[in-house]
């Protein structure tokens, strides 16, 4: 049978990828403390328990704050770097860009440990801001990679045309460049938000006493009784991810349609 093994491979691959995620809502709505088949009835009590967990609320709040702040900061830095690398020529450009992109391949644990050592050495107290610092560091290369391609595809004469028609460099940036690279900016915000939100190692090392969501989830797994709540939390997170991705894709497609570009693939 031609292609038969490919089919088996593809189905097996998808099962391995998504079956565990399907298990999440199954056990989240299961009326039992033990994570095991057979299921023993429908219940939403784990969701109520989740909402009543004060530490979880703090963890979610912390994580959202960190993720939003990191993604905005990393994207802002990314815009500057991407703009510089695509428009200007300066000495040692290749080397500098390489150094900026290095955290992409640097082991996170190394980044986390060295940051911790430096921060403690400087006498800075660990807080959410130290986590943000670490997250901006690891997110920025991703932002630069995404934004560089957005800036690269921008025709330079568009800028010159706006400038030629009397706009200043700043208003040209606002009126022409920003709207045209907006899809890139949104992807960059999204990717860095996602990276920051589920980042564990740096958050674990640098957060001090403040819990973030991944750290909280990790810590709760020590208590078997808390596992169904984590399942409920996981279910909510999966739904939110899908929603977020859909929104991002909608904006990306609209952006492409608006500027008349060719759709060269995206997330969905």
């Amino acid at each position: 049978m031609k292609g038969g093994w490919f089919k088996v491979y593809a189905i097996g691959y998808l099962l391995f990828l998504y079956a565990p995620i399907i298990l999440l809502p199954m056990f989240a709505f299961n009326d039992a403390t033990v994570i095991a088949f057979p299921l023993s009835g429908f219940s939403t009590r784990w969701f109520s328990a989740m909402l009543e967990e004060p530490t979880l609320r703090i963890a979610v709040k912390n994580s959202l704050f960190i993720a939003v702040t990191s993604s905005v900061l990393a994207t802002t830095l990314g815009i500057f770097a991407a703009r510089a690398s695509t428009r200007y020529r300066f000495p040692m450009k290749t080397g500098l860009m390489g150094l900026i992109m290095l955290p992409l391949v640097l082991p996170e644990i190394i980044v986390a440990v060295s940051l911790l050592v430096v921060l403690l050495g400087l006498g800075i107290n660990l807080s959410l801001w130290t986590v943000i610092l670490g997250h901006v560091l690891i997110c920025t290369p991703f932002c630069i990679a995404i934004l560089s391609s957005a800036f690269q595809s921008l025709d330079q004469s568009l800028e010159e045309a706006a400038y030629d028609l009397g706009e200043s460099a700043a208003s040209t940036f606002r009126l022409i460049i920003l709207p045209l690279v907006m899809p890139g900016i949104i992807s960059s915000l999204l990717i860095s938000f996602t990276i920051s939100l589920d980042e564990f190692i740096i958050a674990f090392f640098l957060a001090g006493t403040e819990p973030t969501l991944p750290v909280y989830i990790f810590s709760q797994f020590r208590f078997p009784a808390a596992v169904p709540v984590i399942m409920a939390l996981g279910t909510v997170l999966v739904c939110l991810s899908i929603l977020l991705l859909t929104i991002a894709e909608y904006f990306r497609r609209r952006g492409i349609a608006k500027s008349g570009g060719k759709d060269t693939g995206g997330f969905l």
Partner: protein
Amino acid sequence: MIAFQDVHKYYGEYHALRGITATIRAGEFFSLLGPSGCGKTTLLRTIAGFEGISSGAVMIDGRNMAGVPANQRPTNMVFQSYAIFPHLSVGENVGFGLRKARLPKAELAAKVAEALDMVGLDGYGDRAAHALSGGQRQRVALARALILKPKVLLLDEPLSALDKKMREQMQVELIRLQRQVGITFILVTHDQEEALVMSDRIAVMFEGEIAQLADPETLYRRPNSRKVANFIGTMNFLPAKILSETGGKIEIEAQGFGQLTLEAEQAPGAASGDGAAVGFRPETLTILFEGQTATDRESMATIEEVVYYGDMTYYDVRLDGTEKPIRISMRNVFGRPVLEIGERTRVTWSSGALVMFR
């Protein structure tokens, strides 16, 4: 209007503009013509203010443009890629330059409509800019630049992205538009035909220098160097030598033509070091058919190659007493035979059509 005073431009070691001195008159259609890399676009961009210059001066209306940024110069540009803002509508594109003026809505709309009308796009204001064809983009770019009523409109190879038919149509429209608005147009092109068709005057550029600046007819009839002659149309060359030069007359001896007297204006160029030669366009020589008599002078020749084009036939003929063939173009006339290779023929010519290259 625009004056270049010994303009030099270096990109690092590379000497892109090598002492450009020229004046462009108000209201003329001026072309910068040359092969790619000759510096014509760089020169245009020094007028717009997108390129600085290394030394010399660019003057617009008597004012030195040094230190005046592009957004404050009385020039507007039509870009090679048109640079239509893809996220704005046609109307918003055209009205973009008037944003700063903060006009009342109705007045802005009227001006945009007028500009669109001028380029033949009335009623297109609400369309999305990215949905336009190449020719329409070109018109939007024109309207967008002209709405500001600049003193100078700069056109950077504006027709190169269009197909042949569209290009020829836009050439005519650009000439009409230029006459209508009376603004100085400066066109950059590598297409000699386009330059000849459209321009009042043309500066032919090679390697960062202006080789010749003249009106199209002078450029075609009296090119001042072999390089210019070869770049614009086809030019035949035959070796020649100058016998004497006195009082506006030049006595020469040319291969295939014999001894001739030329006017001084027929030798406009300086010595090139390549040896002297006479040049002439393919259409300035005429093959004499049975029963026709010479209009001026006559030479005997042998047909070596025949290229039939329908309306024209190109003959490569060798004049008696010369080594290499020359090209003659003849309009085909009904009832007249096309000559064949190897035939002997008479050729008539006039010494006034010759150009002497020293």
